[in-house]
Structure formats: C-alpha cells, structure tokens
C-alpha cells in the first residue's frame, strides 16, 4: 500500500486549457499566494486542447482549500481534483548516476534488479540507472544507493490518476 511521503503533501491534478502561458499562471499563483510547490509535472492529454498538471503541494489541509479555490479562479483552469494517495495510482521516473567502480558494480546491479530498474549507461567508474515506480519506492532505491556515492539524480515529479472501480457497480 502507498502512503503519502509527507503528511503535508497533497496531490492536485489540474486540467487546463493547453495555451501558452498557462504553466506560468499556475506557477506565479503559487508564488504570489505563498504556497510551496513540492513537485510539478505537465503534459498534454489525449485531447490536444488540454493539458494535465500534476502538482504536489506542501500545505496544511486548511490552506489547501484556498489553493484549490484560487487555482479555480484562473480562467484557463478547467478542473481540479485532489488525489488521495490511497485512491489513486501514481508514478514517477528517476534517472540516477552512481559511482560504480568495478568491484561494486555487481552489488548495484543486484539492488537495481530487486527494484526492477534499468541500466541506461555504463561509464568507467559510474553507472546511470532509471526506475519508474511509486515515488516512495524511488526514495528507497535512492537511499540504498547513497552509500556508494550518488553523482546525479533527476526526478520528474509524480503523475497520478484516480484508481478505477474494481467491482461491477
């Protein structure tokens, strides 16, 4: 079962008109009203005129309502859903370069295998791996690789969709 990483983190899935400047509007709203964005991912949806922005917000529950209401005031915002981590499926992609001298390489590959990650690039003393999974699982791999010496990490921020009904209604 997935747990939110942090009790103050909330996932908002925001459907917007796919127009230039929309992301800037959303980002500056957060800045102006003093809300923190923890992570943000944006891409067009199947309908080309729309984009979905997945925002992880760092707020208490009460101000979250304000965030949502203020977002709604943006003319280009069409729909906002707060995704309860218990009721949604989430994914995040991580690329990570870690020190991997010849002697350590197999240990790292073994760990990566357990997490079902992939090797993207192998250098003389380093290796770049990728993994997509629930964000908390990426944290786990990152923590386990820490002792080897992480050189670079790049994460996309989480994307999410609501969980589907599993039983016939």
């Amino acid at each position, binding site marked *: 079962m997935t747990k939110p990483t942090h009790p103050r983190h909330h996932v908002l899935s925001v459907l*917007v008109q796919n127009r230039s400047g929309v992301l800037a509007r959303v980002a500056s709203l957060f800045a102006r009203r003093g809300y923190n964005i923890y992570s943000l991912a944006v891409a067009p949806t199947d309908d080309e005129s729309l984009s979905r922005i997945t925002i992880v917000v760092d707020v208490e529950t009460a101000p979250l*309502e*304000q965030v949502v*209401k203020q977002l*709604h*005031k*943006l*003319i*280009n915002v*069409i729909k906002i859903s707060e995704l309860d981590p218990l009721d949604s499926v989430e994914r995040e992609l991580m690329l990570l370069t870690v020190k991997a001298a010849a002697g350590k390489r197999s240990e790292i590959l073994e760990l990566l295998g357990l997490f079902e990650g992939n090797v993207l690039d192998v250098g003389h003393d380093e290796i770049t791996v990728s993994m997509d999974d629930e964000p908390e699982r990426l944290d786990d791999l990152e923590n386990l690789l820490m002792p080897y010496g992480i050189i670079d990490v790049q994460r996309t921020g989480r994307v999410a969709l609501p969980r589907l009904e599993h039983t016939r209604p």
Partner: protein
Amino acid sequence: MKTNGGAALIKALEMEGVETVFGLPGGAILPVYDPIIESPIRHILVRHEQGAGHMAQGYAQSTGRPGVAIVTSGPAATNIVTPLCDAYMDSIPMVVITGQVAYSAIGTDAFQEADTVGITRGVTKHNELIARAEDIPLLVRQAFHIATTGRPGPVLLDVPKNIVDPNNPDSALDWYWPTDEEVAASLPGYKPTIKGHPRKIKQAAQMIMEAERPVIYAGGGILKARAAEELRELAEMTNTPVVTTLMARGAFPDDHPLCLGMPGMHGNYTAVTSMQQCDLLIALGSRFDDRITGRLDGFAPDAKVIHADIDPAELGKVRVPEVPIVGDARLIIVGIIKELRKLQDRGTELPDITDWRSTVSGWQERYPLTYEQSEPGGLLKPQYVLEQLRERAPEDCIVASGVGQHQMWTSQYWKFRHPYTWINSGGLGTMGFAVPAAIGAKVGRPDRMVWAVDGDGCFQMTAQELVTATTERIPVKVAILNNAYLGMVRQWQEMFYEERYSEVYLSPDLPDYVKWAEAMGCLALRVESPEEVGPAIDKANAVNDRPVVLEFRTDSSEKVFPMVPSGLSNDHVMVDPSQEDPK
C-alpha cells in the same frame, strides 16, 4: 468582410458598446489609433497613463459599465500597472489594451518591449497576448465578458504591432462577431456561480430568525451586484442594523435609522462595536479585510457568520463562516427574503431585538463622530470643510477621494444617500487616485456634480490630469485639504513613533496650488478661514465650464478618530479625546 486587426479592434470595442476610451498613443499602438479618427468612440487624451487607468476606474464605478484604456507598449504599459492593481483589489470591471512590439520581435529586448503579460499577471483577473489578427474579435469579447461577470475585475489585452498594422499581411482577417455561445464555449473553465445554493439560503434565513444581536456587514459586492434596494428591504424587514464598509459607502443611506455607517480602523465607534458584540454577522459582498477586522483572533468573538460572496475563494479565506453562500449578492438577498417570508407565513416570528437596537443607539448617542470646531481666527478644521462641501452639494453629487486622512474624513463626514456616489481606492490605497477617478466619473455621469477631495500629497501625484479635464471640457471640482503633510503617515508617527517625524513635511506654499491650478486652466481659490469656506464652495459649485480647484489650508495637527491601532483587536477603539471617559 476583409479588414485589418487595427480596424477590427476598434470595431470590436464599438460592438461592445464602448462610448469612451482613455489613453495616450505611441509607437507600438499607432495602427490602433488611426481608425479612432473615424470611430464614434470618444477618446480622452490623458497626460500620464496612470491617469487613463484611474479614469477608466472612475468611469466604471460611476456607471457600472466597464472602463476602457488604450496605451502603448513598454513604459506606457508599466505606467498603467498601478490602476490595474487598484482595479483588481477593488473588483472594478476594466479592459486595458496595450501595444506590444511585433510578434517576431518579442523576446529580443526590442525598443519599448516589456513583458506586459508577465508583469500584469498578478494584478489582472485575466490577460492575453493576442497572437493572430483573426483572434481579435473573440479575445475582445472574452475580455469584456470576463471583466464584467462573476467577481468583476481588470482584463488586459496585449496587442503586437504586426497584427494591427494594415501594411503588414499579418493584420489581415475576415471580420466576424462571435456569439455568446461561442464565447462561453471558448472559456470552458470560466463558469461563475450566480445563484446561491437553496439549502444554504434556507439555513441563512433560519439563522436570522434566531439571532438576537444581528448586524449586516455590507461590502462593495452589494454595489457590484446592484443590490442596494434588496439590501434595504432585508434590513427593514428584519430591523437589522447595517454597517457599510469603505467600499460600500452609499449602498445603504447614511440617514436611514438602521444605518450605522463605516466600520474598521477609522470606523465610528458604533459600527465597530456592534460588529464586535453581535451574535450574527451577515456579511454580504464583503471580504473581512484586515482594516475591518483588526486583530483577527479578537474579531466578533460571539458571532455566527453568514457569508455571501460571488467569489468562492473569499469564503473561509479569513473567517470560517457557519453558512457560506456562493453567488450574486442580489439574488442571494432576494432568496433570503423569500425564505424569511415563508417562515413567517408558517407562524415563526422574528425575534424581538429591541434591546439590541437600544444598546446600539446608546452607543450612537454616547460616541457620535465629533471634532473640535476652531475658535474664531483659528485654523481651519478639515472635518468642517467636508461638512460644508456636503451641505452645499446636490444630494446625488459624486465624490472621489485620494488616500490618507482626507479620505477617511470624507468617508466619515460625507453623508451618502445614494449608491454609486462614492469613488475611492480601498484595497490598494493608491495616492493620486482622486483627480483622474473624478474625471472618469464625470465623463460617465456628465449630469452629476463631481467633487474630488484630495490631499496635498496625493494631488501632487496626478494633478496633471486637470490639463486633460480642461482640454476635454470635463468640469470636475477638486478640494485640496492642504495640511502641509503626508498627514496619515504623520499621524502614525505622532501616535506610534513618539512624535519622531520622518520625511512627512511637504510645505503649505510649495507648490503654489492656486497658480498651478490656474496654469492648468482651472478656476482656483485659496481658503484659509472658516468664514470663507461656504462662499468659496458656492462659487465653485456655480462654475460649470471648467474645472475648479479649492485649496483649503487646514490644521496640520488634526488626527483621524476613532482609530483602532493596528495590531489590536476592535475592542480597543480610540475615540476622539473629548469623548474619553474621565480617568
């Protein structure tokens, strides 16, 4: 019909019913100015773009129709940022059109290029950079729709030169005029809630039926919703006293027995204290501004709150209401009245609130607004000037003000009897608002007398627009309360900074306001003693062919009372020293 973007833009304004625009041309907007020559739209040439913005605001506030300003790119666009922010804070419908460098030059630091859409994003309800000439009619329609519906506000359209210049092929388009349905379909995310939720309205009525110490807290939303009559009906039906905020002065007549006047930091004792002690606060189109609530954790501690507002984000933003209602204030009030009637028909009686009413009138008797009249030969009191201005002006005279002590005295001492007769900068508190806003109001309501009450500091920020007024034959009247100081700041330094006066002295004689006003084509008079006040005002009121400026030399030491010092709760109203309890 083949046309070009410049002509289409002006035609679109005509189609929207625009009769007057305020503006000043320049390089990037030149092609838009050319078709203005043939257009029936009246263009008022301002002397500074800030003036154009505030005029559009004054026009909008006096008429209820959106104000329109057209300016060029870069420095002109930045000059109009203050009025945009002002209109955003006070929810004033306004459409501003700015020129922009050619689309292909955007991002190159071209001459007079500014990121106008970026700069104004936080101070507009919406803004758009128009990319293609063919988008002009739709985006203009959207702009007016957004500015005037839901919670009104300013909308800016940034227009690159290439799409309006007839010599550029980019400007070619086939004229069309989108239907209401097309406009709505183009804005799938914009659907303001207008009708209040019936269950919430029922709850509100129920709560009113149970209240023993109710107060109606009427805000600027009453005026935006054109709900003054309905407000009066609700107040009279339930015998509920009404406070009118700085933005709502005139929404309920000051001479009505249920009117308590203005609450807040410089509100009168009764308005502040009745909100503080009420058991039900009926907030209609008001937003619990910090200047109203004082220290929040001590505000109206026993009150249950009904909060009706068209902007859902206002509900619970400051104070969590027991009954939140999203919607148009007028429709909500009508709904509440209907529910109350139903309850009455079923035999429920309105509670007897005579005790509350008599407590309230006790405060009114004990703590009326007051000031000490000067001895013969003494310095002129600003409050006296205002009383005289009010008394000698027609009942429906419109008054605009700047920001500072003179603004608070105007709001306190002008007895408002009609909606849309008070024009001021509430949320942003913009010095320099009065003169251009009064000019805009007079353009919108040429049938009304329009006074601007200004401070000496404020006047110096936008006085040049009196040149506009003289040139365009807009006979506004300006009363400068010349106290030789940035008076409001001086008051805080006197009271809270141990009389350490830092950079607030302005001099009474420099500039010479009379000569300055005369140089701008106005009739000007200086008034120094109480005896001269009445005759000078009568003289000013008789002039109708040009602007008039009266300079009143007032007592610098006069302070605005009552006052709730910032940071304290509204239990700590400082009344006029003459009303303090003997220690």
